Each structure stands twice: as C-alpha cells, then as structure tokens.
C-alpha cells in the first residue's frame, strides 16, 4: 500500500464527531457542583487578607506614633491604645522609654510587613485570580520599601 492510500484511509477515521446528545447540561451541573465544593476554600484567603489588613493598619499606626515627639507620643498612645486593636508588642515598643525605641518600632514594622507579604503570597497561591490580593501585595510591598528606606535613613 502506498503512503497516499494510507493517508487517505486514515483521513476517513479522523475529524470532528458530534455526540448523539447535548452534553452541556450535564457539564454545567457538574461545574456548578465543583464551584460549590470549592467555595469553603475561599474563606482562608479572605481571612488571611483581613488579617493582613489589620496588620498593615497596625504597622501604619506604629509608624505614625514613631514620628510623633516623645511627650505627645505618650499621651496619644494611652488614648489610642485603649480604643484601637493594635498588636500589643507594637504598643509596648512605642511606649518604651528607650533611646532605641524608634529603631525597634521600625524593625517591628518591617517584621509585620514581611509576615503580611508572605501571607498574601500564600493566599495568592490558593486564589491566583484574586485581584484584590494582588493590590494588597503591591501596597504591602511599597510599605516595606518605605520602612526599609526609613530604617536606612535613621
């Protein structure tokens, strides 16, 4: 048999074939079931994102405190600490009457931001399509950069 004959023969076997029935309704219901199964796994991503937001807020707050003059700082901290859910270690570092306090605050801020960045990246691995996580990661990274610059300047 020539190659031409073989090629013609096999061409008869190939090509699209339409199924006897519309498979889409079954596929659609299976997709819907898959989506419902997946839904609970979204909660960790949102929880991580919320945690990261709180951490970022705390870091920003600590940053503001660190930039205040010492006498005002103590007064403001006492008031704000009573009303704001800021991580205790951040407040402790700010209220310390230590000459290295500003440096420690920056170090803590840097640690918080590094943790936040890592958490967001983990969340992104679970939800690579989550645009809000990408925005959050960008914001966190720009804050990290500012803290680093401040550390080097200080």
């Amino acid at each position, binding site marked *: *048999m020539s*190659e031409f*004959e*073989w*090629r*013609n*023969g*096999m*061409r*008869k*076997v*190939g*090509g*699209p*074939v*339409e*199924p*006897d*029935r519309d*498979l*889409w309704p*079954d*596929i*659609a219901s*299976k*997709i*819907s079931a*898959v*989506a419902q199964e997946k839904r609970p796994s979204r909660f960790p991503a949102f929880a991580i994102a919320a945690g990261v937001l709180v951490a970022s807020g705390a870091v920003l707050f600590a940053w503001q405190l660190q930039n205040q003059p010492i006498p005002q700082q103590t007064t403001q901290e006492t008031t704000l600490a009573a009303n704001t859910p800021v991580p205790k270690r951040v407040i402790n570092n700010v209220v310390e009457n230590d000459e290295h306090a500003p440096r420690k605050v920056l170090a803590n801020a840097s640690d918080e931001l590094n943790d936040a960045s890592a958490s967001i990246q983990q969340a992104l691995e679970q939800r*690579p*399509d989550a645009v809000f996580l990408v925005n959050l990661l960008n914001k966190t990274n720009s804050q990290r950069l500012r803290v680093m610059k401040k550390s080097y300047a200080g």
Partner: protein
Amino acid sequence: MDGSALRVNTQLAEPPREDTVSTLVRRACAGDTRAFETLYRDHVGRIYGTILRLVAMDRARAEELTQEAFVRAWQKLGSFRHESAFSTWLHRLSVNTALMALRGKRDTESADEEALELAAGGEVPFCAAERGDLERAVSDLPPRARAVLVLHDVEGWKHEEISAELGMAVGSSKAQLHRARGLLRRALGEAA
C-alpha cells in the same frame, strides 16, 4: 513506511478566531459559564471525536469522558497561560483524560488482542474500506497500539509527544505504531 509522512491534520471546519477564544477563556476563567459554554460548543466535535476513537468507538464512554474532560478544563482554566492555542491545550487535556481511563482498563488488553487475531484475515483492502470498517478495525486494536495509532496517524502527534503522554520510550511508541499498522492491515485484509 515512514510514519512521519502519514500524519493527518484534523482541524475544525471553521476554527474560532484565537483573539475571540482568548477573550472567552479569560471570561470563563473569571467564572462566566456562558463563555465556557461557547468554548464547549466550538470544540466539542473535535474533542468527542478524538476521545471516541481512543475508547474504541464506545459512544457512552466517550460522552462520559468528554464531560469529564470539559469539567477538568473548567477546573484548570487558571493554569492556561495563553502561550499556546486554547484548542491545543484543551485537546491535550482531553486526550490525557481518555488515556487515564484507558490505563485503568489495561488488564483487558490481552482479550482485545485475541479478538483482533480472530478478526484478522478479512478480504477488504485498506484503500477501499469505508469509514465504518476503518473505525471498527481501529477499535479492535489493543488499547496502547490504538492510542499510538490514533494520536500519530489521525491526530498528527509526534512520537516524542506520544511517549511523554503515555509514559513510554520513543522507541516503544514507534514500535507500537508499527504493530498497530500491521494489525490494521491484517484486519482489513491486506497482507503486511
């Protein structure tokens, strides 16, 4: 016979424009099931046809695996990188789905081979065989030989691609193709 000269490219009669497909894929990836339905309707003929040939023209099994392939495609849309054509990506995923099913039925291979031996020796020459005869003959091939023949001669895959997908050496893929062609010729009544 040089196998590389025998590849037959099967394409959609009217393939959808790739930029349209890309938009549909992005929408489907964002959860738009209507966009995914459009992709399904554009591609189901080729996907079902390929799977049907791989599962020996078992239409019920092919329908089941086609559904499974599209559900897997939906789940994995996020991993599609838009670097290759969506049709190629979907086709590979579908073939992989069918091959996984075939691997699970490998224990029936010897029975298939016996059936083929009995079926061999007919009087119909290959070139005169009708599509139905060819499909039946291909269906009667042992699963691995059939998979290699369909992927190489019908779908136009290279031996390197087949060997990677089937987890065999390139040489084994070539040997399986040679065997499949020989068995096919015998089944269609032509001495190898």
